[in-house]
């Protein structure tokens, strides 16, 4: 049973994540993993979510589909509004009809996302089984394979995952995720496991599809250059919190949060050749060991006594905001 396609509101946001706090219960203790995470996605926009491992970006992205970490995941507060409907208020059937259908996801490891014992063709057909539609399945599959640049249909559909390369599998994953024309594609580190030449191919493919179909993409990565090239706007996540959000060129010219600046300075890029890379000292704190004030305090080059208080949220221009005392 499909959820009714509600009209997108006046502010034109396809997805709004508001104050999302997720925790997990482990041996009778509640560990809070994300803290009031908020970001918004317009139709047809590519929004980047950047952060290092353990910052909570994957958990937040799964939560968009209503998936909480197992075992023991809990929604502590907040909402995820997809087309103005709160995901967490939907019943199970409506939720299932959203996933794979209106919201699709692709993952980092294409090999791990496929069943090694089932041929590609069958796996692609499986998607249709869950969401009964009247469209011609085989026709649609062929169309999409063409769109992602795979022309040898017969061979590919008959193959098993291990017979294909990483790049091809990721294209197939993308094709699979688009079978039902989703409005939102969540791409969780889609090219991290791929070579840089294949990465360029896949990213340009994703961008092209996004523009052609007016599909929104939530691009999750730890690679700031990737964001610089492909994202329209960006949110930076650190230790379970969003510390800065802004439109991408404004972000790159003048990032406000010390962590964002640290990230930009710490990552070597080919065009920065002469500049020394300046690493951020220290390590990401573990969940449960966050400080009550600013979580970046210990590693921040400009921290001071005031930072032991939780930092306020400030605006940058019309669209951006960040969380810092400075």
């Amino acid at each position: 049973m499909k959820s009714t396609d509600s009209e997108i509101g006046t502010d034109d946001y396809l997805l709004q994540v508001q104050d999302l706090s997720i925790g997990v219960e482990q041996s009778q203790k509640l560990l809070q993993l994300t803290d009031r995470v908020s970001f918004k996605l317009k139709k047809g926009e590519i929004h980047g979510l950047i952060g290092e491992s353990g910052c909570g970006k994957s958990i937040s992205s799964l939560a968009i589909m209503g998936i909480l970490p197992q075992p023991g995941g809990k929604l502590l507060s907040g909402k995820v509004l997809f087309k103005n409907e709160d995901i967490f208020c939907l019943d199970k059937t409506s939720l299932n009809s959203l996933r794979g259908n209106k919201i699709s996801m692709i993952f980092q490891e294409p090999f791990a996302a496929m069943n090694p014992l089932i041929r590609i063709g069958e796996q692609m057909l499986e998607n249709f089984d869950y969401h009964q539609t009247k469209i011609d399945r085989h026709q649609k599959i062929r169309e999409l394979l063409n769109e992602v640049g795979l022309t040898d249909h017969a061979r590919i559909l008959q193959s098993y995952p291990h017979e294909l390369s990483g790049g091809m599998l990721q294209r197939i994953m993308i094709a699979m995720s688009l079978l039902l024309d989703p409005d939102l594609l969540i791409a969780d580190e889609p090219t991290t496991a791929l070579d840089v030449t294949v990465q360029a191919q896949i990213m340009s493919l994703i961008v092209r599809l996004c523009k052609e179909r007016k599909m929104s993409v939530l691009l999750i990565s730890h690679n700031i250059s990737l964001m610089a090239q492909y994202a329209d706007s960006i949110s930076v996540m650190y230790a379970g919190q969003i510390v800065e959000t802004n439109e991408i060129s404004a972000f790159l010219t003048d990032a406000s949060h010390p962590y964002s600046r640290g990230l930009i300075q710490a990552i070597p890029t080919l065009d920065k050749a002469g500049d020394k890379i300046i690493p951020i000292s220290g390590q990401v704190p573990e969940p449960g060991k966050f400080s009550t004030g600013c979580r970046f305090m210990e590693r921040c080059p400009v921290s001071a006594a005031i930072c032991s208080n939780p930092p306020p949220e400030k605006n940058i221009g019309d669209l951006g905001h960040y969380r810092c005392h400075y």
Partner: protein
Amino acid sequence: MNNKVNSPIIEVTDLQTWFPVKSGLLGRTSHYIKAVDKVSLRVNHGEIVALVGESGCGKSTLGNSLAGLLPIRGGQLLFRGNAAFQGNRLQREVFQNKVQVIFQDPYSSLNPKHTVFEILSFPLLYHKICTRNEVSDYIASLLEQVGMSAEYMNRYPHSFSGGQRQRISIARAIGMKPDLMICDEIVSSLDVSIQAQIVELLLELRKKLDLALLFIAHDLSLVRALSDRIYVMYLGKIVESGNTAEVLTSPSHPYTRALVQSVPTLNRECPPVILQGEVPSFTNMPVGCSFQNRCPNKSERCMNEPEITESNQRELRCFHPVQI
């Protein structure tokens, strides 16, 4: 930075590591996967040399072969002038523990049942680098050199993060006072900000200990920040080599150029350029130049195998280099 004589610590000549593919009823070898095919390279004293290539190009196989973990089919490795390979096996005594290896995965590089002290002390005591009385202090100094507190000595690996574990692996390697460290993708599985820390550490160690590095990686940006010279590998062969800054700013080989152009930068005005096609498999290699199917400069001539030509301290394996 090279005050010493430009003497090579290791000189690899025409190294070949082939994997036999057996088929048929009797399991006869039908053909070979030439993972490393006539590779020659050199690392000089105190130099950081990068070996880059995409997955499957054979760089890790090369690293493992130099470490003596794989039998080679042919070629030679001279360590300070002494031949290290006899036939197809490495004679490790030739290295005299002056060549150390660090691997990619921090989680399987440390024995989970041993404390940091034990991990570091076993080789030190076995090779008599220091005595039982000295070993504790020596280990403390090693840990400090890699930026870790000496009190971590009695902890087990599971209490450390990926970056810290790699530091411990580095400490283990430098404890042997090596001349050369082979680093096989050692930062690839770490977070970006930790990668930067480790790179900074390696540069420091190079300065302090006069250490040479053979840095195997796939991240060109990292390699640019770290290495002096670079070798680019494609399908088992070196296609280009030379000074890192020069090769990456003005690459000669079409593949190197494609690689460099694929890397995203912070400059949105310069989007990555797409190289079409995929790396052919080792079992399905084209006749002649292995890059020809994806090369914009391809011609008839490329059906013959190009040899390495050297000029201006740069090596190139191509008939149609990129014109600047």
